């Protein structure tokens, strides 16, 4: 009986898929966020936007964790930066609205971040308020 059980376990192990990352780690998300920031610095706006999309999916896979929301806000700000650069103002505002939903107290350092983005964040906050959304 034990031999049969051991055989069954061994056979199941042989059929099992190789080990893989069940849930993406926050470290992986952080690496991707750093990559997006680098791409933006180097003015690869469209590529940064593409990577942002993949990172957004990655965050969905990570699931609900307290540490996720801050990263989600950062991701959306990065995406908004790329969208603003590409003239996609409405999309950029949408990204900032998602950033605010993730982190309602979000502010941007006006000395470092483009005034266009700071202005858009205020606009996004106002629109969210108009819809009755509360943190």
């Amino acid at each position: 009986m034990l031999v049969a059980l051991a055989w069954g376990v061994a056979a199941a192990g042989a059929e099992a898929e190789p080990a893989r990352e069940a849930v993406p780690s926050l470290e992986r998300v952080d690496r991707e966020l750093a990559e997006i920031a680098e791409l933006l610095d180097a003015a690869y706006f469209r590529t940064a936007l593409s990577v942002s999309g993949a990172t957004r999916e990655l965050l969905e896979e990570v699931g609900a964790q307290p540490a996720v929301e801050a990263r989600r806000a950062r991701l959306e700000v990065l995406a908004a930066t790329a969208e603003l650069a590409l003239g996609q103002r409405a999309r950029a505002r949408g990204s900032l609205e998602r950033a605010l939903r993730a982190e309602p107290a979000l502010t941007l350092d006006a000395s470092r971040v483009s005034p266009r983005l700071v202005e858009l964040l205020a606009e996004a906050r106002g629109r969210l308020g108009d819809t009755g959304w509360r943190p």
Partner: protein
Amino acid sequence: MSESRAGLAAVEHTLVDLERALLRDASHVVVTGRSGPERSLLLSALPARLAGRARAAVIGLRGAEGHVLDARILRRLGREPGGDPQVRLLEQLRELAADGSALALLVEDAGSLSPAAVAHLGRLAAAAGPGLRLALFVDEAGADPVPQLVSRLGLGVQKIAAGGAAARSAPRRGRPPPPAGPRATVWVERGRLEPRGRPAVKALLGAGLLLLALLALPERLEERARPDSRRVAEPARQASLPPPAAAAAPVAPEPPAVAAAPPAPAIAAEPAPSPPLSRVSVNLNARPWARIEVDGRELGITPLGGIPLARGPHLFRARFADGRVLERRVTVDARHNRITFP
């Protein structure tokens, strides 16, 4: 940053190979490499690269088998998988093929798929005809899983070498010769994706830059990602072009509305108009932000993307909020189209 650029150059090489294989050769592709930022970048950039000529969907197949896989692909196509998902999916793929398009299914982490899932993909690809193209990404770590994967798919193996078409027919040593016909699997090895900073990446960068110079391939990833960038005809006469300062305005279109949910990244990125080949679409950024002038004319506040400028020398000036002014004279062309300050 230079390492990052090396990584981008490596990704660019692989993108060129993949684009050729999936669109021109209508092939299936197995890409070997390691997971990491470059692979993520490749998977993100490839759909935009194929946009307008093929739909592309990145599929994470964790635990997916048979009809689950079919249903997931259908949802990616915006279709409800009612009834028999495989039948519905095949109908969709044939419709796409009839429209002159196709679905390029970009399978992440294909090396960890179960044999049954891989066999299912192979059968699906064979049944769908030109409506489905597979790009399967396999990690290199551990034993080489590619021969097993390819044999399970039931598709042939062909290798792309750095020399291009002349070397295309050379079979890999110790492997069966490539089968005739467009449905062979292309086994991309040249654009191996290595972690940044490794010597292999640096060697690849040198070889890659040389190859780019020889082939005169546009180096800019984003420009190549635009679906119509290769379809714009070169104007007959350069002399008919307006002066550079007359073209200092962003051209990327404003999308119609804000989506409540972010756009699905797996489907092709929004098309953006490309400037004529005699012009170059230039991106500018500064850290911290700055007001940018080109040839004495103010463009606006960074970040600025898609600024159409005539090829040739331009004087870029960045005025920072703290009063600093930096100038840079750059001869813009397809390779020098991103200007950053400082």
